């Protein structure tokens, strides 16, 4: 079976190499039949990569320990679902996942855009070039199909990965990371074919939106996994590997906004090219970070030989993008100019600058240890205060702009119209701010500002829906007529919920820790926690020890929680103990009572850490609204399809 996997990967490599070389020649010399052949090679590479993936999944399902990858990542007692998820639990498997998604995306993108011959002719070799790198790595540097005499059992899976979230979080992130390749390929294809009008943007808008949504949801699921599994009471730690996924998402967010300016006003052509290249390079940079071991992360990554290859690839992609953009600069001139600093396009521009500035300050923080090591011979690192400072500096104005942008007119806004549009949102913001101060929630200035700005944004979104509904007579008709716009507002509402959840759960959380004997109680934020008993039971993979904690409020029983620990006798690196937190979701404050059995002494003393995190559940609720809003914005739109067809027709005439 391993031989079949290796052969399938070699075939994929050959096919994408052919698509790269033949596709480039065909696009250059305008050979239609050869270009079609290159497209078919790219489609076929998806099939051969699927075969390779099926071989690995089959080996994991059968517990075929003659595959080194299988023996290093799972064992016999691991449930089937987790065994299959080991596909992306290791380096070689995750590279194969990358290639599988990329070839699948590429096949679909080529198939859907096969009529745009001049553009797609150059898109094919760009996609094939990226696929060639990953196929080469899998064939010659990091193969999942290495074999060795099979041991009696495998090394097992790290306990923290044995969580349902791990079935979805990594593949969703990869769908996002890899998805950014498609707009990049179309952008480079547009430059190579000299078709720098808006067609490449219209053709890839849904791809970008889908990749961005996957990346966002993937990160949110990862945050929730950290929250329920890692047992420290948080969901984001500004770790380099977390930041690696956040940076391309920020760049893609900026791109999604700035493409609207290019579509509407023919501006920011150069900026869009830079953004799409930045988002793609950052997605590769994230993969480089997770594999090179160059950055000290709480995630453990091997010092694998892949780091150098990825660095080389990033340099190559950056040099290619910069050179191509530079050479095609004359084609990237704006058709129109910004007429006023108070206009919707100006608001979008401010939004873009803030997003990119935030993205680059995070990048600076991530690479800071490398730079100080190289320049000063001493490694220095920045931590949470650095990132929080820039989150407040750039995030709060971004939040405010989310409410301002939709209310400002295109081209130029008058003071009178601004006053009319802003009076209600401003009133909502002022009332909220005053009420919060009066209620004593002014202990955190960033928290207070976040809530005040949130009220402004919520009012502006509500106002937009109300005005639109009044004009069309129906909310459904309103959304159906302009899915993109109102889907975007729903996503804004999701970001708002997210911001309120983050501000509430971080700025206003309460933490208490105490050693308790049986029968003793502690209080935290109005809840009384009583330690009742300790019990142990044997589970499939682990010995589970749980404390029983009665939670009451105002003398009334609220719930019973069971924080504890699991002891795993078989795990990579030897027996491992994991914290198993217990959480009560309080519907009254949309928050959580989060209990961690920090330490359980042999004498029975329980060191209980309790966190009360108001509004934290808004963060997870925001995820559902985020996906819903994205789906609305992505949903096929007949008006947009007509516009697309007209653009293609215009392009054909121009050609």
């Amino acid at each position, binding site marked *: 079976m391993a031989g079949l996997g290796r052969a399938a990967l070699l075939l994929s490599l050959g096919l994408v190499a052919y698509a790269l070389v033949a596709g480039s020649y065909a696009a250059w010399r305008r050979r239609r039949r050869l270009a079609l052949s290159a497209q078919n090679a790219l489609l076929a590479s998806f099939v051969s990569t699927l075969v390779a993936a099926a071989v690995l999944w089959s080996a994991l399902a059968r517990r075929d320990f003659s595959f*080194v990858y299988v023996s*290093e990542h799972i064992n016999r007692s691991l449930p089937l679902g987790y065994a299959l998820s080991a596909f992306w639990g*290791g*380096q070689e498997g*995750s590279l194969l996942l990358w290639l599988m998604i990329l070839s699948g995306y590429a096949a679909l993108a080529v198939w859907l855009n096969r009529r745009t011959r001049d553009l797609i002719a150059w898109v094919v070799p760009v996609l094939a070039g990226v696929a060639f790198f990953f196929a080469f790595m899998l064939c010659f540097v990091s193969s999942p199909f290495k074999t060795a005499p099979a041991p009696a059992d495998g*090394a097992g899976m*790290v306990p*923290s*990965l044995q969580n349902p979230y791990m079935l979805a979080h990594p593949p969703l992130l990869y769908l996002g990371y890899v998805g950014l390749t498609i707009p990049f390929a179309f952008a480079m294809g547009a430059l190579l074919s000299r078709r720098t009008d808006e067609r490449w943007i219209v053709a890839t808008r849904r791809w970008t939106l889908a990749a961005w949504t996957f990346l966002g949801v993937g990160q949110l699921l990862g945050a929730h996994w950290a929250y329920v599994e*890692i*047992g*420290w009471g948080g969901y984001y730690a500004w770790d380099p590997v977390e930041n690696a996924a956040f940076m391309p998402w920020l760049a893609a967010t900026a791109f999604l906004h700035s493409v609207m300016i290019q579509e509407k006003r023919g*501006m920011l052509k150069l900026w869009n090219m830079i953004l799409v290249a930045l988002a793609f390079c950052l997605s590769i940079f994230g993969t480089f970070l*997770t*594999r090179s071991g160059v950055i*000290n*992360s*709480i*995630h*453990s*990554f*091997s*010092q*694998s030989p892949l780091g150098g290859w990825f660095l080389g690839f990033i340099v190559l992609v950056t040099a290619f993008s910069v050179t191509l953009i530079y050479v095609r600069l004359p084609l990237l001139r*704006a058709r129109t*100019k*910004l007429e006023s*600093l108070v206009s919707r396009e*100006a608001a979008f*521009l*401010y939004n873009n*600058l803030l997003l990119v*500035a935030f993205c680059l*300050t995070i990048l600076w923080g991530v690479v*800071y*240890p490398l730079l*100080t090591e190289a320049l000063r011979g*001493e*490694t*220095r*690192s*920045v*931590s949470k*205060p*650095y990132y929080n*400072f*820039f989150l407040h*500096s750039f995030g709060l104005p971004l939040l405010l702009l989310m409410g301002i942008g939709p209310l400002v007119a295109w081209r130029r806004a008058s003071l009178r119209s601004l006053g009319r549009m802003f009076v209600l949102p401003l009133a909502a913001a002022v009332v909220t701010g005053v009420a919060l101060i009066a209620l004593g929630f002014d202990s955190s200035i960033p928290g207070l500002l976040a809530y005040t700005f949130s009220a402004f944004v919520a009012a502006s979104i509500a106002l937009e829906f109300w005005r639109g509904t009044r004009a069309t007579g129906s909310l459904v008709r309103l959304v159906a007529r302009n899915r993109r716009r109102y889907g975007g507002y729903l996503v804004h509402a999701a970001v708002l919920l997210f911001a309120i959840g983050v501000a509430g759960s971080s700025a206003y959380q309460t933490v208490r*820790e105490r050693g308790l004997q049986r029968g003793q109680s502690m209080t935290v934020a109005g809840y009384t926690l009583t330690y009742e008993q300790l019990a142990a039971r044997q589970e499939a993979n682990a010995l589970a020890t749980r404390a029983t904690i009665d939670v009451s409020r105002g003398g009334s029983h609220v719930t019973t929680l069971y924080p504890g*620990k699991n002891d795993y006798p078989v795990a*990579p*690196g030897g027996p*491992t*103990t994991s*914290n198993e937190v217990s959480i009560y979701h309080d519907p009254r404050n949309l928050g959580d009572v989060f209990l*961690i059995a*920090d*330490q359980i*002494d042999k004498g029975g003393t329980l060191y209980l*850490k309790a966190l009360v995190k108001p509004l934290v559940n808004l963060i997870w609720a925001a995820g559902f609204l985020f996906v819903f809003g994205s789906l609305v914005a992505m949903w096929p739109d007949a008006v947009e399809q007509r516009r697309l067809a007209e653009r293609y027709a215009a392009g054909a005439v121009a050609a």
Partner: protein
Amino acid sequence: MRRSPARLVIALSVAAALAVFVVYTAVAGAGTPQIQPNDLARHHGHVLLVGKVVSAGGDAHSSGGLRFVLRNVTGHPAARARVVYHGSVPDLFKTGREVVVTGAMSNGTFVADTDSLTTKCPSKYQPAPPKSTT
């Protein structure tokens, strides 16, 4: 023809971002030194110590605290640092694990900040387990 104010906006925004950055680095300093046990003697003040746990004992919730010894992750095999720590202990903390802790030297012992101990989370891409032990 009137010039577009876009360039002015971009220039002012870049300048503002740089100003914010400069203010931050001036006020909050430029990061924490990240060192291994062999470098500890040369640094006075707050540092981020990275090392592998050689031995551990004590109770992180008692007044005496959790006491452990760290060695270098890379190079200087003889270098050691004695650490005293109070607070939450991560699940994965044990002998042989790579940990990160912040704090400062005091009377020959590295006194760690409360709740600052983190272990490297072996969530994925682990190095292959050793084939044999010697």
